[in-house]
């Protein structure tokens, strides 16, 4: 090239020979990206709606899909009353909960992985699940709760999940800064503490042991409209709040100093994202127990397909998380009728091999 000129002209206008290289239409590249994002969200939404209808139709009593659709949209009745009860009172809250929890865990997991810049981060990584488990265990084993009735267990799980994160955040905070490594370590320590307490409660549980273990495994068999009313606003708020910080999360993936230099108030973003994902996860755990796998694997799978940009990664993870968990729950309740399998077992058994296949073949696209 013309490098020799550089030595002579100190202020010479450099020319790196762009004309030799192929020209790229930046406008097209720019608009294509957003079109691709729109199509991704659109098709996943269609997938979620179809999943929804199918999941409502399948079960011990098979109901025609068209009838499900008609029941949902209050068409003039032309089906037995039992169908209506099965769809609206039994299956609908369960499917909605599974979808909400799947979406919430996937979004929260994705946000935690981005925030902590750590591929093994999950919504539970900061000790939230152990805190929730402790709260639930206290309610189940000791029969103690701040509220009475069927919501005692969810309420205690929610409160102790928040307590755990509050502890972790304040332990990790030094002079107004919360280094992510410290946060992670504090989370592990607090998590281990609560796990030990849960183990102790299991040890002394006696005949309550079975119901505690069932709760810890996680599942949707105890779904009700009440739980939907509690979880829906909290999880939606958490998801929307997390989406609000998509751009900031992108910049924080490059490193905190990059983010600061690009105008991101790193500490306040950390705090906000933590608050929203904690809210989502705590609500999810309190209504469904501790369902693993979704929150850690779905974001990784979506990273392979849509890339690292949180503006598309978060919403598509949410949609896929919802679809995935609804399917897994449908399997869990139909595969060996009349008994149910814990949904967490199904997600891991079916999801892990698929993820390992992707990991082997497309690792490069994930980033870490």
């Amino acid at each position, binding site marked *: 090239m013309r*490098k020799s000129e*550089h*030595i*002579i002209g*100190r*202020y*010479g*206008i*450099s020319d*790196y020979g*762009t004309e030799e*290289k*192929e*020209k*790229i239409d*930046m*406008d097209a*590249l*720019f608009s294509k*990206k*957003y079109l691709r994002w729109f199509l991704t969200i659109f098709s996943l939404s269609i997938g979620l709606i179809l999943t929804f209808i199918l999941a409502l139709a399948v079960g011990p009593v098979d109901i025609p899909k068209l009838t499900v659709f008609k029941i949902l949209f209050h068409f003039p009745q032309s089906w037995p009353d039992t169908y209506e009860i099965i769809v609206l009172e039994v299956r609908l809250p369960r499917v909605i909960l599974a979808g909400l929890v799947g979406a919430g865990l996937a979004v929260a997991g994705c946000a935690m992985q981005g925030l902590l810049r750590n591929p093994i981060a999950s919504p539970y990584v900061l000790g939230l699940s152990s805190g929730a488990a402790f709260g639930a265990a206290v309610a189940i084993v000791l029969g103690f709760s701040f509220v009475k009735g069927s919501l005692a267990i969810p309420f205690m799980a929610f409160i102790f999940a928040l307590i755990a994160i509050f502890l972790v955040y304040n332990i990790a905070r030094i002079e107004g800064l919360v280094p992510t490594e410290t946060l992670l370590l504090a989370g592990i320590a607090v998590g281990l503490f609560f796990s030990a307490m849960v183990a102790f409660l299991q040890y002394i549980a006696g005949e309550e042991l079975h119901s505690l273990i069932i709760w810890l495994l996680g599942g949707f068999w105890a779904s009700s409209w009440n739980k939907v009313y509690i979880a829906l606003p909290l999880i939606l708020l958490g998801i929307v709040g997390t*989406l*609000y910080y998509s*751009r900031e999360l*992108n*910049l924080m*993936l*490059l*490193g905190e*100093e*990059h983010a*600061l*230099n*690009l*105008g*991101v*108030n790193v500490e306040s973003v950390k705090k906000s994202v933590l608050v929203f994902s904690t809210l989502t996860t705590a609500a999810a755990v309190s209504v469904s127990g501790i369902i693993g796998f979704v929150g850690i694997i779905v974001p990784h799978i979506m990273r392979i397909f849509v*890339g*690292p*940009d949180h503006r598309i990664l978060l919403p598509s993870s949410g949609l896929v998380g919802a679809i995935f968990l609804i399917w897994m729950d449908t399997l869990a309740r139909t595969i060996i009728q009349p008994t149910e399998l814990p949904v967490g077992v199904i997600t891991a058994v079916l999801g892990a091999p698929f993820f390992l296949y992707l990991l082997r073949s497309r690792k*490069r*696209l*994930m*980033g*870490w």
Partner: protein
Amino acid sequence: MKLNINGISFSYNGVKALEGITFEVNEGEVVGVIGPNGSGKSTLLRCISMILKPKVGTVLIDGKNICEFDRKEIAKNFGVVPQESVIVFPFTVLDIVLMGRMPHLRSRFGKETLDDLEVVKNAMKVTSTQHLANRVINEISGGERQRVIIARALAQEPKVLLLDEPTLHLDINHQLEILELIRELAIKNNLAVVLVTHDLNLASRYCDKFMLLKLGKIYSVGLAEDVLTIDNIRDVYDIEVEISYNEKTESYNVIPICCAGKAAYTSTKKEIFSLIQSKTSTPPQALLEHAKRQSSR
């Protein structure tokens, strides 16, 4: 446009890292910050961009104190190019440069406007990174990546460009390329540039003014003639050097000779040879070759 640094001091947990740093940079000017490891060069850059909050002193841009700015406002004024950017995530180059628009974006959920895209295109044009637009950031070369990061800094439309050893790990060709680009941008975009570097020769070629730091204090500041002297470099770096003027590059060349105080043992190949001869039986072939030529001269 003018950048004023007034009496900045900073300490890490009580250990003084910077003390009373005062200097100014005008637009179009490149100021080279030089000094040994641990002399506070990077700390100074971090204090200017308010990543570290100096305990004493102010940073003024056009007379306005940036301590009162929020991060967004700071990002509109300062573009920062860090030492080395390890980005493991497969963002495209266009995405990375678009991130530079962050401080200017109004809508949270919407996409960047066409004006933003125009600024980005321009930044990529002047840094010659257009052809990389759809490449993935972790799959381009180090020199290309550094140009992309400079493009991202330009997309911030800053008034000041702060660079922390931008040519570290780059080959000679890319070192020149990056520094020529910076020199050119300072003039074309009216940027005030602060460049931290270890390379005295490149600094003397591309910087207008120099600031030599020693243990967190300014040891010498001014033009190349005043700062890059044999005495200054001996005092600060503890080495003996020879300085010559190169007519072609119109700049000074600093050639290190030996560590100060160890003048008795200079590490010429001849002396290494004699050292090896006194110790081992078979010296390396290359040294024997060298000694042969020396003696035939």
